[in-house]
């Protein structure tokens, strides 16, 4: 009973947060200087008479009171009637859904690969504490993670695409070749390779560092020492005792990154002209495409909230110590 109550309280907390985010996403673009008129009416806007302009503004409800616009927005949000983008002149949902899979493909594979590599290397470095290998790994990974992402991406393009010609330069797949079946998959993978490797290289440290620190902490815990005293074999201690416990903080980091899955690769998407959400969002802001800003932001924020929520739900299952974690950890 108590448990249920607590869970509900959490949910209630999230609902408030979602409401805040929804409202914020409405007001934020409207507070920006400038307006979306050019993108609605085209570049010859100055030629229109005042009445003609008013008519268009009317049609887009742009001079309703902000409160009225807000309620309309809420209504449309709930009824899933998201409307059309000012600049793309297409339904918002189709704009977002066309781009989301690509971002997901890129970001998700990055998430999986960099997490695995990060855990692997973090374990290596942590277990080899004080050894040369640890120093190499720590300094090497810190160094590559300190490179500007676009810079690394562009160098990759320069070296591997332009000079060596191993990989395509831009895009998600070869658009004018009608590949099907397995060759289509290969084509997509070839396009994915460079942006993905750039992202992976830059995000390894996000997992590597927590993993390494957690490992070192766990290694000093009494129960690990005790396991040795109990005569438990090395490999069991290493994986069942040390690594498994060290994975807990890594899980939190992992879920945090799940939340940023839609927004984490804006720069790389731009560099590699990858057809993802990042570019769309960026353009939406510069063209003051209110609905598109609203909903792409919403998508992103909801993803973060969702992943937080999932973390809250999963954590007690993963770490039995957490019965119902309060916010103060």
């Amino acid at each position: 009973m108590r448990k249920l109550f607590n869970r509900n309280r959490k949910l209630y907390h999230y609902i408030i947060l979602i409401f805040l985010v929804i409202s914020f996403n409405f007001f934020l673009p409207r507070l920006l200087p400038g307006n979306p008129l050019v993108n609605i009416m085209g570049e010859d806007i100055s030629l229109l008479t005042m009445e003609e302009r008013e008519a268009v503004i009317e049609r887009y409800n742009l001079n309703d009171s902000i409160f009225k616009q807000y309620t309309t927005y809420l209504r449309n949000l709930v009824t899933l009637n998201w409307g059309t983008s000012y600049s793309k002149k297409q339904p918002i949902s189709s704009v977002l859904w066309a781009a989301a899979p690509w971002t997901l493909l890129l970001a998700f594979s990055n998430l999986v690969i960099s997490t695995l590599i990060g855990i692997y290397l973090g374990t290596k470095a942590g277990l080899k504490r004080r050894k040369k290998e640890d120093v190499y790994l720590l300094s090497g990974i810190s160094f590559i993670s300190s490179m500007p992402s676009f810079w690394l991406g562009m160098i990759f393009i320069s070296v591997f695409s332009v000079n060596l010609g191993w990989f395509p330069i831009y895009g998600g797949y070869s658009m004018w070749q009608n590949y099907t079946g397995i060759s289509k998959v290969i084509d997509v993978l070839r396009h994915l390779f460079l942006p993905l490797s750039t992202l992976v290289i830059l995000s390894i440290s996000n997992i590597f560092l927590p993993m390494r620190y957690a490992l070192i902490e766990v290694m000093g815990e009494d129960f690990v020492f005790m396991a040795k005293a109990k005569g438990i074999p090395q490999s069991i201690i290493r994986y069942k005792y040390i690594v498994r416990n060290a994975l807990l903080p890594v899980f939190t980091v992992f879920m945090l990154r799940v939340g940023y899955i839609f927004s984490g690769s804006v720069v790389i998407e731009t560099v590699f002209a990858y057809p993802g959400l990042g570019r769309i969002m960026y353009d939406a802001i510069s063209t003051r495409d209110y609905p598109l800003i609203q909903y792409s932001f919403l998508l992103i924020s909801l993803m973060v909230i969702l992943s937080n929520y999932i973390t809250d739900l999963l954590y007690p299952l993963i770490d039995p110590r957490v019965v119902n974690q309060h916010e103060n950890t």
Partner: protein
Amino acid sequence: SSVDTLTISIHTDENTLTPFTYVRGYPGIEVARLVFDSLFTLDANNQVIPWMVEEYSVDENFQVYELTLRDDLKWHDGEKVTTEDVKFAFEYALTQNSSRWRRIASEIEEMEILDERNIIITLENSNLDFISNGLADFMIYPKHIYDGVEDATLVEETVGSGMYQLLEYRSEQYYKFKAVEDYFMGTPKVKNITMPIINDSGANFQALRAGEIAATTAQLAPELVETFEGNRNINIKSGPGFGSTLLQFNTEEYPFNDSKFRQAIAYAIDIDELIERITLGYADKGNLGFYHPNSPYGRQTSTHSYNIEKSNELLDMLGFTEKNAQGIRLDAEGTPLEFELLVNGGSAPRSRTAEIIISQLMDVGIKVNIVALEGNTLDDRVWPGFDVSHGRNYEMSIWGWSGPMQLNSDALIRLFASDFAKGNLNIGGYNNDVFDDLAEKFAKTLNLQDRDDLIQEMMEVIEGEVPFLTLYYGETIMAYDSTKYDGWVMQDGMGIINKFSFLDLDTAVAQEGVVSTEVEEVSNNQSSSFPWWVVLVLIIPATLILKRRKNREDDEEVI
């Protein structure tokens, strides 16, 4: 020579490419013109030629236009193009948001359909340029698709009567076109066109160089001309561009309200250096009277000159003789001449222009601080609500007007008339009685020659006043892979993406009017001198780091 498939990258996403969904004037409209035709069209030299129209006549008042459509016009879905479509297109445009079409359609008073091919269009007021500015621009779209649709942007099908049919569009990804075999001007030379959308201009050039695409809508950056000239497959065409970069003054603001002061600034700016540095010479020097010399209304004479003595002289004359410790001139009240220059931070050439200008102005004792703003924010300060009557909130700004403005005879009126209803582009708040009188006369003129004379007269007025200083018009430089396709035609001020690049016309584009910088084949290996050591530098530490040391005993001890 006909080509089966051509890949031309497009550097922005232009949606479904219908007259109501394209995004930008360039490349959106230019590409859309391959799909949609207009009654008239502009040829490579920007001369009007009839296109969908077979015969036409205009009354002496430039008010009644009698048009006869060609007989062989067909929509892509097989329906015949009739005068019903034409009438509908103009009427329907009035109900839609697009300012471009609305402006043209709103000039029409009535249309009378005589039969399927003949129609009479009557304007509310006489307009000498209705064909070139209106009918040659206005795209005709099918009634059977748009009839009854309230919001034209929601029409997803792209059905035109142009030479190419849009087969497929994927948002942010690509367009695929197929040639219309029985096009009335002949079968297009390229059967299929694929247009991948590559937002990053650098990536477009990379792709071009790597041989992945045949051409791109993106203009080649001047600094790449040399590199690309070295590539034996790539040809470069360049021609005058009509888009301008200018230094805009807020003429309502002291001391910019004084034409002497504006002149002083103009004299202090060394435009040649700007052109040399920023465009590497690929630009034409700004004309004091707005129009580009190659535009129908341009004059060769009125160029600007750099004269620092004159500038100093003028400033001294205005009373700004005192200087403070930093060498900045002081005005009568002792306030230093220190101003803000707004610039679009997202545009590198413009921010560089600003950077050079401020150092040049410093030489005459005027201190200017650059304020880099995001594009839309800049618009909001210079041109709030895109309505000049809303006022303005700046002192100086780097600004620019797009190419098609050069083709409008009334551009000067719109830029400088103090009555904001006419001078709807008068973002500097310029006010001059002499000019206004000329503008009044201009509106009443019905004679082409008189009108051209008036334009010249107005330009002379403006030249002495410098309400803004046009710095340069960047040249249009287009690069293409000549091994893939070589039939490109350069349209003045526009580029190579146009109807004439894909059609075999003997008459319309007899001469290109543009010097094509076909480069002799130079075997140039320099560009492939890739610094391999860089790869080594990157790879060696990586392998060092990843080198594993297997030592089980070690592990035992550590944990």
